[in-house]
């Protein structure tokens, strides 16, 4: 019984220590206050309002305190760190965002902080087929 309770506490602590995740349903005004700009989402890539075309815009968000620059790299931009720099929040906070148009499919991606530190998206599925020793995440874009 005691051991089981410890496990529960450990799980709760581990959950609380995860990088910031906020339910996407959170009041948009609160999010604007956090980022000082348009409503960011802090729970993995989120689909922007649907477009008529097959390509849809997805917003990627990461919290990276003290970062000087953050790049979004993945299957959608040739893993080129110069292609998709992320924008910091207008008030200089730790929230960085980028919007990328994606066609239906499964994409692997990661965040590159200050050109050397790799971060997976804590709010997205992990790429199990990672073979290069650094974490990656997965975003899946559906067609229906």
């Amino acid at each position, binding site marked *: 019984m005691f051991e089981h309770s410890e496990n529960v506490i450990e799980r709760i602590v581990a959950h609380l220590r995860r990088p910031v995740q906020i339910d996407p349903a959170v009041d948009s005004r609160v999010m604007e206050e956090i980022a000082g700009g348009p409503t960011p989402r802090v729970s993995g890539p989120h689909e922007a309002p649907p477009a008529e075309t097959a390509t849809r815009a997805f917003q990627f968000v990461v919290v990276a305190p003290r970062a000087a620059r953050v790049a979004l790299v993945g*299957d959608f931009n040739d893993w080129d760190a110069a292609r998709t720099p992320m924008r910091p929040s207008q008030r200089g906070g730790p929230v960085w965002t980028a919007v990328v148009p994606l066609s*239906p499919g*499964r994409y692997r991606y990661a965040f*590159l902080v200050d050109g050397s530190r790799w971060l997976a998206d804590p709010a997205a599925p992990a790429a199990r087929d990672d073979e290069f020793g650094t974490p990656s995440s*997965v975003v*899946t874009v559906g*067609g229906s």
Partner: protein
Amino acid sequence: MHLLRTTSTSLLGATLIATAAAAQDQRLDRLDPSVRPLVASVIDSARAAGLPTEPLVQRALEGATKGAPGEVIVGAVQRLVADLGEARSALGPGTTPPELAAGAAALRAGAGPAVLAKLRRARSQTITVPLAVLADLVASGVPVDSAAAAVLALASTTRDADLVEFRRAVERDIALGAPPGMAVSTAASAAYGAQGLQLDAGARQSRPSRP
């Protein structure tokens, strides 16, 4: 005989063109000069076999950007070729490149070719998202059999967006402490509606006990 010679010449020409295409892909210039021809050769072989090459290029570029050793990059691309080939065998010749890529990921996650074939038969529309959700669930810790059973049960009647939401629900429950097998069962039942859903998973986990 003449026809055979003509066909062989055409195939040879197509292969040479393909080889030239891979060799001229400037994106591969980011690879180490000693690695680039090896990767290009693997990609050429895949193209000749009718497999999609873009996932292979992306895998090589990922390795280059992450600073992986050359042999690791080549090995990763070769394994992806094998997975794509196995996925095509399971899913059929008309499979789209996104479906093949998602199928390869599902195979890598541990799903068997039979599951991929069942998914193909279960759904008339594209199965990219069901395959991707299957791979993601397994990555989240859900036993392969449980994940496959749930996705197979939902695939025929559930839209892509709802499948993605189903996966999110499972991940939420796991993050809150639910055993992965139980989380997928609960979310699948909710997604399937009041009629309930029996998951013949063969890998069920016990109900979580209360502290």
